[in-house]
């Protein structure tokens, strides 16, 4: 490659990534050379400012068209920008939440910059147009997450969680890679837009079962990442074992990245691929598209995820496990627009993820606050919370209402769009809608069960929850955001519409 060509690339389109990369590298050096006794909390603020700068760069890119660099392997389109925005905000909130002070001795400074490298991986997943770079991004996020989960190296649960996570995650990425290899074998290309173009060729049509197989392999591998049933088993243990802010990171940022890569990998290479079923048209026999052929599996997966997540959540005592299953259920809701192959898929998934980011992070922030006084936060730890800390309780109430999909919260608007995506396609997906109905009503039971604890039960301790300034900041931002997006959803809806043309994803 000529040096001139290299310099000609529009490198500015990678500015947010460079910022994060530089911050992570700089922080690791600072951490290395800082005297051992010094308080490490300055690193967190440094990381936060890095994220703020990255967000500013991202905002300046909003109205650029599609930019591709590095031989079309890296791609900045609306889809990438929209998902990167969510991941940056999510990571920023997790950093703001910080880690418990009494664990800092053990944890040292690697916590913030591992979050950043994970974020970098997630951003690459959102922005790549090549199987290789997509996979590198996926691995970067995964490896950072494995370390983060096991970061408390003297804690038994954390070690167990990290081990489970690395084994399960390793298998999942291997399966994805296996599926990708079939794509490469069929088309001889790694660029997903080239693959898309070649998918209509005769050789693929002849071997269309292999394309379906490749799809299913990739999908199964990614289903691990987004905790879709029946590939969700790792989530509760990992969520429970990890430090609460890291659990929040896994359940929000990692899941957003998972949906980003899933949407791109499903929508781009496979959108014109031939499926298995034959369609008889006046012009002769042709094949239905691959996405139509595999739709029953997608529907099945969504239905299973919703039902399993909600049903098992009913019986949970540990708060983190409860929210692990609840987040499995939410992954199921997010699969609905995909399974319905609705034209709303990008808007619905993006909005729901935005809502989910706020409400789920908020809920984990409250669990984290309760973790200061309890070794294990159970449902009963919420008892009498209203009497102890009314403001924390009101914030938690907002998150729970939003998670349950009660109107005037962001979660409701998101769920409304998802219902629309299931019922707005022809033929109407009543199965999906009714499953969501069942799931939502089941979720009422455990979300409102927390209300019972917070408002009806008496607390054993009378003192208020230890609320640091940073916790208050996180709670305020997420609660206000949840309500604001619930009452004025047009803020987000017109914003994504003015700045993001999701259909760019299909244009090579």
């Amino acid at each position, binding site marked *: 490659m000529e040096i001139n060509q290299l310099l000609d690339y529009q490198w500015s389109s990678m500015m947010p990534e460079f910022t994060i990369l530089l911050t992570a590298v700089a922080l690791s050096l600072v951490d290395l050379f800082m005297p051992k006794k010094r308080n490490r909390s300055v690193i967190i603020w440094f990381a936060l400012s890095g994220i703020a700068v990255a967000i500013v760069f991202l905002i300046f890119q909003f109205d650029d068209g599609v930019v591709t660099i590095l031989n079309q392997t890296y791609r900045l389109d609306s889809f990438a920008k929209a998902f990167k925005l969510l991941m940056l905000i999510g990571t920023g909130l997790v950093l703001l939440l910080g880690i418990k002070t009494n664990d800092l001795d053990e944890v040292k400074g690697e916590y913030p910059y591992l979050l950043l490298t994970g974020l970098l991986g997630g951003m690459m997943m959102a922005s790549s147009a090549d199987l290789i770079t997509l996979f590198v991004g996926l691995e970067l996020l995964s490896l950072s997450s494995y370390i983060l989960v096991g970061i408390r190296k003297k804690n038994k649960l954390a070690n167990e969680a990290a081990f489970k996570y690395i084994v399960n995650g390793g298998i999942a990425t291997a399966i994805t890679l296996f599926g990708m290899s079939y794509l490469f074998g069929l088309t001889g290309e790694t660029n997903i837009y080239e693959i898309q173009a070649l998918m209509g060729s005769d050789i693929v049509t002849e071997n269309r079962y292999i394309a379906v197989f490749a799809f299913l392999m990739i999908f199964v591998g990614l289903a691990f990442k987004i905790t879709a049933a029946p590939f969700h088993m790792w989530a509760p243990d990992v969520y429970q074992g990890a430090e609460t802010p890291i659990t929040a990171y896994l359940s929000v940022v990692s899941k957003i990245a998972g949906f980003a890569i899933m949407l791109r990998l499903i929508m781009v290479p496979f959108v014109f691929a031939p499926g298995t079923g034959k369609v008889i048209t006046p012009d002769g026999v042709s094949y239905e598209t691959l996405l139509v052929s595999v739709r029953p599996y997608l529907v099945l997966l969504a239905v299973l995820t919703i039902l399993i997540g909600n049903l098992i959540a009913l019986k949970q005592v540990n708060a983190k496990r409860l929210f692990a299953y609840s987040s499995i259920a939410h992954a199921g809701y997010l699969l609905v627009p995909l399974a319905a192959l609705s*034209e*709303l898929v*990008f*808007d619905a998934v993006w909005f729901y993820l935005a809502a989910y980011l706020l409400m789920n992070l908020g809920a984990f922030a409250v669990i984290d606050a309760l973790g200061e006084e309890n070794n294990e936060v159970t449902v009963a730890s919420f008892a009498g919370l209203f009497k102890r800390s009314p403001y924390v309780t009101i914030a938690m109430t907002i998150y729970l*209402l939003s998670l349950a999909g*009660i*109107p*005037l919260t962001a979660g409701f608007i998101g769920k*409304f*769009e998802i*219902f*629309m995506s299931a*019922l*707005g396609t022809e033929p*109407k997906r009543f199965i999906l*809608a*009714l499953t969501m*109905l069942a799931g*939502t*009503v089941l979720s*009422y*039971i455990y979300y*409102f069960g927390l*209300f*019972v604890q917070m*408002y*009806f039960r008496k607390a054993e301790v009378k003192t208020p929850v230890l609320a640091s300034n940073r916790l208050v900041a996180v709670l305020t931002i997420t609660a206000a955001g949840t309500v604001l997006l619930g009452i*004025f*959803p*047009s803020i987000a*809806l*017109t914003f994504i*519409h003015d700045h993001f*043309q*999701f*259909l760019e994803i299909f244009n090579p």
Partner: protein
Amino acid sequence: MGGILTILILSPLLGVIVLSLMPANHSSVKMIGVFGTVLPLIVTIGVFSLYDRTLSGIQFMESYQWFELMTAISPNEPYPVTYDLGITGLSLLFLMLSALITFLASLAALRIQEGVKGFYMLFLLLEFGILGVFSSENLFLFFLFFEVTLVAMFLLIGKWGGFEREKAAFSFLVYNGIGSILLLIVIIVLFVEFRTMNISELTSLLQESASYEFLSGNTRMWLFLLLLLGFGTKLPIVPLHTWMVRVHIEAPIAVVMIHAGVLLKIGAYGLIRFGAGFFPEQLKETAVILAILGVINLLYGAFIALVQTELRAVLAYSSISHMGIVIIGVASFNTAGLQGAVFQTISHGLIAALLFLLVGVIVDRFQTTKLADLGGVASQTPLFAGFFLAAGLASLGLPGMSGFISEFLAFLGLFEAMPVIGSVGVIGLILTAVYMLRAVLAVTFGERKPQFDKQKDLSAVELVSSAILLSLIIWIGVYPAVLSNTLQMARTLGIGG
């Protein structure tokens, strides 16, 4: 008068705000709570007096764009979500009923001792939801306010209820949650087909024959059945009634007054406004089944009420029985029947509120509602006994009281449409007399238990509240035109007529 409905809906929230700023043990918390319900009552009376009975259609319309949902594929065809308020004669009657009963219930709630501030805040939030439900001219708003009542009721039952309050609260939550999400599915199907959630627009769109291209008769039948199931849970239609009995027995008295008096009526309102308004053809097709369901409700409720040993359970099953008459009226689908159904909801709202007001007095004075433990209170508390007897008589449909008019109209409608089913249903009316008198007599007459000596009769507040309700019941019974004059609009909505 633009914006008066918004003012009406928001008016209870003023009380919530004031209360939230007060210390919990402040002496005037209760007073603020009660005043919080007076304000909406005044606004409702204002709306009532400004309402023009000679006009047909929707009045006090307010319509604003709220937000738009857009798809990436076709960004130029947005799905607009609007904020529409407006009332018809039908909703006006329900608004009056709600504001009045909420006010009286807030007086009955003065007996609450613990967590008064929280109670009144949720109570006013509940009123916000109820007023919103009846003022919405838009299905999105209707659903929104409906869910507000759900959350408020859950907390009210679960915190201030009786021994099994949490079970009752969850039972309420699950049944009504299912009902409301079924409704949401119907709303969304209509929304994606017609790109509007405005109720009157949908009513006229659905009645154009061209709209069948969008929504086949088969789909309509499904949607109608979903609506029936959704509102049937609320009403409730047997066998979806178990939650409602629990709520009647466990919830605090003031909340039961609202629940029996107003909330159950949302089911009837929805069935008439949406079931009959959107899908008249489907309603006609299923009329016989609906009528049979109504008669089952009527008889089942009455028979079970006959053997209950607990006064609140008697009244709960009596509510089920009375809601059967509403279903019968809707099923007959003619002017008399529909009018009967509306009359019955209003009338039962008033009667149930009065009965539970008096049950509240019993609980306060005698600490029990078991029929076996009560008795002979007439000699000690004659005023109470008199009102209780009057309420019982109203409930069993004594001529000259509102219950008679509504039952008469509903059965008139039914006999016109389905005489055979009607004649079976009439048995229910006899049973009503039996179980009602059995319960009333067990409380008021018989041997007086010694521990009930020296109990105070109705206090001034209780007396005035009961008198207001009873006089309304008699007024409607003697001069039913007070309702039908306002209601005329129901017919111009395209139902019956």
